[in-house]
């Protein structure tokens, strides 16, 4: 029992001021990393600081970022969704199917989003309805959803999307600002508000910290989890619209391996993989960092796999270094 506890009846609201909290936060660390990487990129390639090039670079992370925001909420609630890339593939395939039957752009977008929602509902039902562990359920649906895409498409491809459909993935809203970038920023804001300023967001944290206690506090745990899987499905569908529009075609192997990149983005963003903590701001920064690393290395023609080594190292180091530092400090204080 610390002496603090014994003191006065009056309890202040906050232990630390806002500024101090911000300064010590994960986001501050990520921001520093982002600035360093930006500086290195500027220094190492003359092509980096060009508005059009930077604009092109944003495509490296916008679609994955859309998925990562929703995935972040799922992970905070203590679950995981590894089927996001497969949902994307299935959404894209069904959009293609609709297009081959003459659907126009608005219908295509609707079908993409609805397919995402439906897939999310399947995951949500299996996880929160039947109470199955999400990590294995979504390993299963990952094969299932992509498998359906393969059944529909086989070795064919859908091409020839309507020309106005191309705007979602290739259009610019203003000068170098692409539609995808605007969408990314808007979604980030929406998710940040949803998670940090609404009672829904609060229950997500409560569930991630202790699902049983949350249930005993009157939180509708199953319903919240179901909604989260729906949201993730929806965002995967949205990403499918963007990616399909950007590629102008669909094959069942589209977006292979994106689930792990999205998870990496979320974890790098400081979301606790075990649930219960993390903020959207971190995910935004992580998306920027990963995008800049990919683009910066790309300008130097470094093979993609070396970039992934770097991202893998970053993932471990960003978590390990602060822990090492506190440990060393402790040892020093004692010794």
């Amino acid at each position, binding site marked *: 029992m610390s002496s603090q506890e014994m003191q006065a009846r009056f*309890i202040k*609201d906050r232990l630390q001021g806002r500024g101090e909290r911000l300064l010590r936060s994960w986001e501050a660390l990520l921001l520093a990393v982002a600035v360093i990487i930006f500086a290195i990129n500027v220094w190492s390639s003359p092509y980096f600081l060009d508005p059009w090039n930077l604009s092109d670079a944003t495509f490296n992370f916008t679609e994955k970022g859309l998925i990562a925001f929703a995935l972040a909420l799922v992970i905070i609630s203590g679950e995981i969704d590894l089927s996001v890339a497969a949902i994307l593939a299935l959404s894209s395939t069904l959009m293609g199917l609709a297009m081959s039957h003459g659907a126009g752009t608005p219908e295509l977008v609707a079908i993409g989003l609805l397919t995402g929602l439906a897939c999310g509902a399947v995951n949500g039902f299996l996880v929160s309805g039947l109470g199955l562990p999400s990590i294995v359920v979504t390993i299963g649906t990952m094969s299932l959803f992509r498998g359906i895409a393969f059944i529909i498409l086989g070795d064919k491809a859908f091409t020839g999307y309507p020309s106005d459909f191309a705007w979602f993935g290739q259009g610019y809203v203003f000068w170098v600002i692409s539609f995808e970038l605007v969408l990314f920023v808007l979604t980030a804001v929406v998710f940040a508000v949803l998670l940090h300023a609404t009672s829904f967001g609060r229950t997500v944290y409560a569930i991630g910290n*202790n699902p049983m206690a949350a249930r*005993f506090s009157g*939180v509708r745990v199953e319903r919240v989890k179901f909604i989260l899987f729906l949201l993730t499905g929806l965002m995967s569908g949205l990403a499918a619209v963007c990616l399909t529009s950007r590629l102008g075609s669909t094959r069942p192997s589209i977006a292979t391996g994106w689930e792990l990149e999205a998870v990496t983005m979320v974890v790098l963003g400081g979301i606790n993989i075990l649930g219960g903590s993390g903020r959207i701001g971190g995910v935004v920064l992580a998306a920027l960092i990963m995008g800049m690393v990919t683009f910066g290395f790309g300008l130097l023609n470094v093979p993609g796999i070396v970039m992934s080594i770097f991202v893998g190292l970053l993932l471990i180091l960003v978590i390990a270094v602060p822990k090492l530092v506190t440990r060393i400090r402790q040892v020093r204080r004692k010794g």
Partner: protein
Amino acid sequence: MIRLAGIAKTFPGVRALGGVELSLFPGSVTALVGENGAGKSTLVKILTGIYQPDEGHIELDGRPVRFATTMDAARAGVTAIHQETVLFDELSVAENIFLGHQPRTRFGFIDWKRMNAEARALLERIGARLEPDMRLRDLGIANRHLVAIARALSIDARVVIMDEPTAALSHKEIGELYELVERLKAEGKAILFISHKFDEIFRIADRYTVFRDGEMVGAGLLAETTQSELVRLMVGRDVGQVFPKVPAAIGEPVLTVAGYCHPTEFEDIGFELRRGEILGFYGLIGAGRSEVMQALFGVTRPSRGAVRIDGQVAVIRTPAEAVARGIVYVPEDRGRQGAIIGMPIVSNVTLPSLYRTSRHGFIRMAEEFALARDYTARLDLRAAALDQDVGTLSGGNQQKVVIAKWLATRPKVIILDEPTKGIDIGSKAAVHAFMSELAGQGLSVIMVSSEIPEIMGMADRVVVMREGRMAGTFARDGLTPEILVRAAAGIGEEA
């Protein structure tokens, strides 16, 4: 036999022990008492090699020893029944007893045959009717505790430590435990007995040691002291009345339960709860009281029966519905079901009443803090700041956060399941005083408790349960402990 000298232990931010002295003697039971968080369990962990002391040393037969691991401690003859359950659901009874020191064959492989045989012998010795190959997850809570005791005895020890061993046992098993303690004493073992129950301390212990805030503040022979003396040492001041029940005006029925059934847990439960009333639920541990309460709260689904709130039939399928209808539940298992350890106090308190501090789903920080401040102040919560994680509070204060959380929803009925279990005497008095106050304000209270003095002191009426059924309802007047125990144990019924 064993002596601790100047033991100190600091956790990040908390000094759990500071310069503790303690001696244990062969053939003698030493009781260790102190408030929650006084450092008793920490001391046990140091004695069994789970923690290393920062300062000080342990002497065994006058020679200094170091317990780097639990195995070191076991080899030196120190064994303990820990406060927390330290068992494994998926393993067999025998393995639970011998895990970490299984009998081996000549080649270093585990000798399952011998292990089972030795486990059987141990279980017989403590009078437990269990098979060594039973899986632990199929056992009830009392039998689990017996396994934990068998585990402690599987080490041929000279020093036996028991950290609140009776907290989870029922009447009958407690009696058997006392006999076991006597036997161990007769065998010349040194025993350290930790408990919050004073009657049992005076019954079985010879000596006492009192801790306060991680320091030893007194020790001696029990024969030379009194209960109030011990309490004064523990708390540092006199504690007023422990059960300050003030009579409250009892009004019309608020909650009526009739023919309430569950396929496997309880049957034919019926009672009435009135405004301003404290209704006690007594029974042996495992009688199914928590099950009934959790059904009322919408955690489990009853199979039959009717619940009326203010005369209206209410169907409650989820805790959320229960809260909406004004029924709230303070669970028995604080750590798992009550507080959300990793979240700040403020979020814990406002979680079920978020709709009140938000507009269109958007939370208003200022209102949220105001609500939390209001209710935590009423409960006299001790904390540094409202955005502190609940996990950093002591057990008693965590309980207060859980209660504050429910009061903030302005309920009609509050169900308290073992509200003072494992809580020290000072905090206990506070909880009781508060319960009384709530009833006085017209709130209806259901209090589940396994402690007779608490039930007798606080309840207006008492429902006794036995094996999932009601064994009787008793008014406060003319109630004796005898009546309660007979009803709970079913004595007199069969005869």
